[in-house]
C-alpha cells in the first residue's frame, strides 16, 4: 500500500483579466491530472492560492460530480488579496484547510479558472494524499513515532529563492547548500520551517518521497509554519504526514520556492526533529 503526499502548483504570471477569463496551467514538473491509483481515489487535503495585486475568484472543476458539485463552476474560492493591509500583502490564502478535503479520482483533470484583474499573477498550490500510488513508498511519520525516536531538534538554513517569473518555481536548492550540519545516519523529521519573507509556496522534493513534491504555504495568514506538518498530522490523526529523510540524503532534499512576486528570497530555516531510528511509518 504505497502512499504519497504530493504538492502541485498551477499559475499564470500575467492574467488577461475578466470573469473566469483565465485558466491556470500546471507549473513545470507539476500536473493537473490525477494519476492512476490502485484504490482509484485520493484526496486534496490542503489548498492555498493568491492573486499578486487584486481580489480574485477561482473556480475549481474536474468534471466528476463525485468530486466537485458540477462542471460549471465546481467549487468557487474568493481570494481577498487586499485584506492583509494592502494588495498583494497576503502571499497565500487558505482555500481548502484540514480537516476538510476534496476527493479526486484516477484520470480526472483539475481545472482552475480565474476571475482577476488584467496583468495580475495568480497561483494555486495543493497537497494531495494518495493512499496507494504505485511506485512510491514515501517516507512520512506521525507525531507519535517521531516522539518515540526523538533525540534532538535542529533548525537548518536553506536560501532557496523564487523565479523571476511570477508563479513559477525558482531553481532547486539542496537542504545542505547553505548549512551542512545534517548528520549522516541520523533520521530527520521535518515538522515545519520559518521564513523572513512570506511566500506563496515552498516545495520539498527528494527520492525518499518518490521524487514528488510536497510542501506548504507561508503567506501572511499561513505564516505560522514552524509546526506545519505536525499541525497537519494533528488534523488528520490517522495519517502519517511528517516527512522524514536520512542525513546522508540531505543533498538530495531539494527546496524550491514559488511566489506571486518575482525573485522572492524568503530565507528558509527548516525545523526538524533528529531521530535515532527511522520514525517513518506506513
Amino acid at each position, binding site marked *: 500500500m504505497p502512499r504519497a503526499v504530493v504538492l502541485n502548483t498551477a499559475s499564470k504570471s500575467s492574467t488577461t483579466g475578466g470573469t473566469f477569463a483565465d485558466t491556470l496551467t500546471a507549473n513545470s514538473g507539476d500536473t493537473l491530472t490525477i494519476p492512476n491509483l490502485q484504490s482509484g481515489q485520493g484526496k486534496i487535503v490542503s489548498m492555498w492560492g493568491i492573486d*499578486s495585486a487584486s481580489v480574485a475568484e477561482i473556480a475549481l472543476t474536474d468534471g466528476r460530480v463525485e468530486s466537485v458539485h458540477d462542471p460549471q463552476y465546481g467549487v468557487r474560492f474568493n481570494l481577498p488579496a487586499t485584506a492583509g493591509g*494592502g494588495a498583494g500583502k497576503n502571499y497565500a490564502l487558505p482555500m481548502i484547510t484540514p480537516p476538510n478535503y476534496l476527493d479526486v479520482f484516477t484520470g480526472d483533470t483539475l481545472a482552475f479558472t480565474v476571475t482577476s484583474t488584467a496583468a495580475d499573477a495568480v497561483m494555486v498550490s495543493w497537497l494531495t494524499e494518495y493512499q496507494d500510488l504505485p511506485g512510491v513508498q514515501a517516507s512520512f511519520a506521525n507525531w507519535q513515532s517521531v516522539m518515540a525516536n526523538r533525540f534532538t531538534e535542529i533548525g537548518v538554513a536553506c*536560501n532557496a*529563492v523564487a523565479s523571476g*517569473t511570477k508563479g513559477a518555481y*525558482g*531553481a532547486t536548492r539542496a537542504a545542505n547548500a547553505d548549512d551542512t550540519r545534517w548528520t549522516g545516519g541520523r533520521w530527520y523529521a521535518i515538522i515545519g520551517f520559518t521564513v523572513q519573507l512570506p511566500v506563496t509556496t515552498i516545495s520539498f522534493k527528494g527520492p525518499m518521497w518518490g521524487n514528488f513534491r510536497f510542501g506548504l504555504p507561508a503567506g501572511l495568514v499561513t505564516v505560522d509554519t514552524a509546526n506545519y506538518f505536525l499541525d497537519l498530522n494533528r488534523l488528520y490523526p490517522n495519517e502519517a504526514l511528517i516527512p522524514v529523510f536520512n542525513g546522508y540524503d540531505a543533498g538530495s532534499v531539494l527546496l524550491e520556492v514559488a511566489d506571486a512576486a518575482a525573485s*522572492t528570497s524568503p530565507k528558509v530555516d527548516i525545523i526538524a526533529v533528529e531521530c535515532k531510528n527511522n520514525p517513518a511509518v506506513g
Partner: protein
Amino acid sequence: MTDYTHTGLELVGRHVPDPGAGPFDNAQQASAMGYDTLNPVSGTYEIGVVIEGAFVPIVSEKASLIFDRIDSAKQQAQDAAAQQTAQQTPPAATGPQAGVQPTEQQSVEPAAEQSAMQTGEQQPPQQQG
C-alpha cells in the same frame, strides 16, 4: 490644541535589496545564488517618514511588486499618450486615392459622378406602366 512634536513630516520611499542578490555579471553567478535572472528585483520597498533624520518605516512591501506597479503605470502613461496622439492626428488617406491632394479629389469626384449619371449606373429603375 494638538500636542504634536513633529509636523510636516517628509514621506519617502526606499528600495532595500536582498544582500547578495545581484545584479550579477553572468548566469553562473546568479544560479549560484539561486536566481534565474541576472538582475533580480529582490528585497523589500519601504515607505516611511523622516523624523529628525531618522527613517521610520510605515509600510514594507516586496520590492518586485512595487516596481511591477511602477512599470505598469509607465506603460499605461505611454499607451495613453500614444492614443491621444493618434486621436489628434488626421487619419492617413488609404485606398486607390491615397496620396491624392484634396483639391484634386474635389475636381475628380464631380466628373466621376457626372460620368456615372451619363451611363445610368446610379439612376433609379424606371417603373414600367
